[in-house]
């Protein structure tokens, strides 16, 4: 016959394994000891646990020690270079370049089509206007160049004003929620739009140079610096306060520089000009870079999701 220890609170069955391994706190151990004095079933139960304890120790004693080289192998594992998975793939220049290229390519489709079309139209319209008004008259060559510089700066400022924000990017919320930093996205878009405007303006400058003679660089240096500066100011303001304000401010800035007013004989007159300071020079380029960097650093902190 086997004993069944009654499972009530008086008995200490639960505590017997811990008691037999000497792992009971003093109070519980005393309680068990006292109880055992008077309880035959519990004493038998304890004897069973002691037998199990001895058998467990006996069965596991033969386990022995692990081999002596364990630590050497541990050091080898610790010193092994990290598994060439994600980490290296993320940081190798090649894969970073590939990632950048992928983001870059995808922006072509995301940037609003009207930016491409409007810029091209302004430039074509400008070219036709300039050529129609001045061609055949060498004395107007300088005015033609100044006019082209004006158009170039304007398209530079206008395109960039519309590449950021929920009202210009239907997937803006999505853009912000992907692991790709909004900074990289904005750098890609800026390069794309400004690059496109540069190409258009360089093409127009070449046409003008061919029409009047002379090199295109002479014309390009009239607008390159101001175009980059206006583009970066436009980007920065469009991100901070909105596209329209960014565009307006840039246009006003261009106007104050390139269209100084003069009052002649009581009449307000506009004249074309391009002071040396408002051409391609180190100060203008430096300012352009500064505004651009500021805009890019500003980007992640100002996601304008609600309009």
């Amino acid at each position: 016959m086997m004993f069944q220890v009654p499972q009530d609170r008086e008995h200490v069955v639960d505590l017997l394994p811990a008691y037999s391994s000497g792992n009971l706190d003093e109070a519980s151990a005393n309680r068990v000891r006292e109880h055992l004095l008077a309880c035959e079933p519990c004493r038998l139960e304890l004897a069973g646990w002691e037998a199990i304890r001895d058998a467990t120790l006996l069965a596991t004693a033969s386990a022995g020690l692990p081999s002596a080289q364990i630590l050497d192998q541990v050091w080898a594992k610790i010193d092994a270079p990290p598994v060439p998975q994600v980490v290296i793939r993320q940081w190798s220049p090649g894969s970073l370049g590939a990632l950048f290229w992928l983001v870059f390519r995808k922006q072509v489709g995301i940037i609003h089509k009207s930016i491409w079309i409007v810029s091209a139209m302004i430039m074509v319209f400008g070219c036709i206007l300039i050529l129609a008004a001045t061609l055949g008259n060498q004395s107007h060559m300088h005015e033609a160049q100044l006019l082209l510089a004006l158009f170039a700066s304007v398209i530079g400022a206008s395109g960039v004003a519309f590449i950021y924000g929920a009202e210009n990017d239907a997937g803006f919320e999505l853009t912000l929620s992907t692991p790709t930093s909004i900074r990289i996205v904005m750098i890609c878009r800026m390069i794309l739009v400004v690059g496109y405007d540069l190409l258009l303006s360089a093409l127009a400058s070449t046409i003008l140079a061919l029409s009047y003679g002379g090199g295109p660089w002479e014309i390009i240096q009239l607008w390159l610096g101001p175009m980059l500066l206006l583009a970066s100011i436009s980007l920065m303001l469009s991100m901070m306060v909105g596209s329209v304000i960014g565009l307006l401010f840039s246009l006003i800035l261009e106007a104050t520089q390139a269209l100084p007013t003069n009052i002649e004989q009581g009449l307000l007159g506009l004249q074309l000009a391009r002071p040396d300071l408002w051409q391609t020079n180190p100060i203008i380029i430096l300012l352009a870079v500064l505004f651009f960097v500021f805009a890019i650093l500003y980007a992640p902190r100002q996601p304008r999701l609600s309009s």
Partner: protein
Amino acid sequence: MDMNMQPVVDDRQLLRDIAAGNRQALAELYTRYQRPLFNYLLQLTPDYWLAEELLQDTLVAVWKSAHSFEERSSVQTWLIGIARRQAHNTLRQRKIPLIYESEMEAMAAIEPESGDFTLATIAREELAAAFTQLAPVHREILALIFVQELSYAETATILGVPVGTVKSRLSNARRALRSLLNARKELKR
């Protein structure tokens, strides 16, 4: 400086030294705990080489996560907890089902209460032989209590179960042992 001149460094200090990148401290900790850790791992897998590999992985994990030891549990409990996690992860990755034989399945093979014998009268060798046939879940709980000499609370922490489950699992392990012994007896007849 001669190491023998140093006072004995306590386990917690060893872990702090390991966290600071002291390899000698990991070697010392290993010397202290290699036997109980290896013994425990062998209850989870009978494969000696796999147990050695798990022991290595445990030490690597200790090296990497020593800084996260919060000194709320004993060093031994913490170490066995890490060894258990390593074993579970590796066995799961290699689709070795042994350790995942659940307690319910283990209990299904046990008759309710069997045999008209008392455990204390059984030869220890026979009892030990029966122990090796236990399901891992039962070998593990017996090893934690009797070999590692952990309290119920510490065991519960390592297994991630309530203390009540530790108690019931112990009693189930005992019943499983009885059942195994009974089966062996009937086989002899």
